[in-house]
């Protein structure tokens, strides 16, 4: 390993550590947006939730949180369906989304941990 590559690796690890620290709050933010959407029927909260979930899909994979990324992608797909329907989600969809959010909390605890998808 050259010193340049070594320096890059150190900086990449620092960014990954920072991401690990921030990940739980990103998921809490998703959860709050979801609650706002359900309780207040606020479509902007759904837009925000969808955007944040999309970003989590991408960033999770880039930072090695592959399970987080996979769960976020499934959540994103379900949210797109709900957004396109322009209706409030039924109880079954609500349950699925809450399970996905719980699975995200679990997967965020360890990038290498394998979490069973709901």
């Amino acid at each position, binding site marked *: 390993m050259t010193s340049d590559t070594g320096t*890059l690796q150190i900086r990449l690890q620092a960014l990954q550590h920072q991401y690990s620290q*921030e990940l739980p709050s990103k998921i809490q933010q998703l959860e709050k947006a979801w609650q706002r959407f359900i309780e207040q029927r606020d479509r902007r909260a759904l837009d*925000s939730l969808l955007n944040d979930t999309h970003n989590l899909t991408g*960033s999770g994979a*880039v*930072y090695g949180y592959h399970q987080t990324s996979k769960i976020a992608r499934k959540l994103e797909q379900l949210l797109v369906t709900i957004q396109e329907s322009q209706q409030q989600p039924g109880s079954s969809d609500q349950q699925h989304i809450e399970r996905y959010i719980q699975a995200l909390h679990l997967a965020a605890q360890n990038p290498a941990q394998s979490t069973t998808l709901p």
Partner: protein
Amino acid sequence: MPQTVHINHAQNRAPALQRLLYVEDEPGIQEIIKLTLEELGQFTVLGCSSGSEAIATGAAFRPDLILLDVMMPGMDGPTTLKALRQIPGLASIPVMFMTAKNNAREIANLKAQGAVAVIAKPFDPLTLCDEIRNAWYSQPAK
């Protein structure tokens, strides 16, 4: 007797790739990609967090290539591209989209909008530079 024609492929290749305008709204992704593009790829990179920021600052940066995330809040990638095409100096700069919707139909749709390549997300930051260079040098000669 037929003449043998030698084609100098080096002359047909795209010009050297140096300056990248990179538009991505997720700070975590932008940070790691900018780092690898600069340190590993030795590119000069201007990172923008939104389409409107790219529109405001892109021309002064004089990029060789524009890398555009597709799904962004407010102004998405294709809308940003249309606006960038109206700016003198950016009207003909090659664009590569980056998207997680990497099915054949979506890729064809993005290329129809003028992208020279579509990079599938998620990607490995450590191989992204090679992917960009491969796509850059695969462009048809102008």
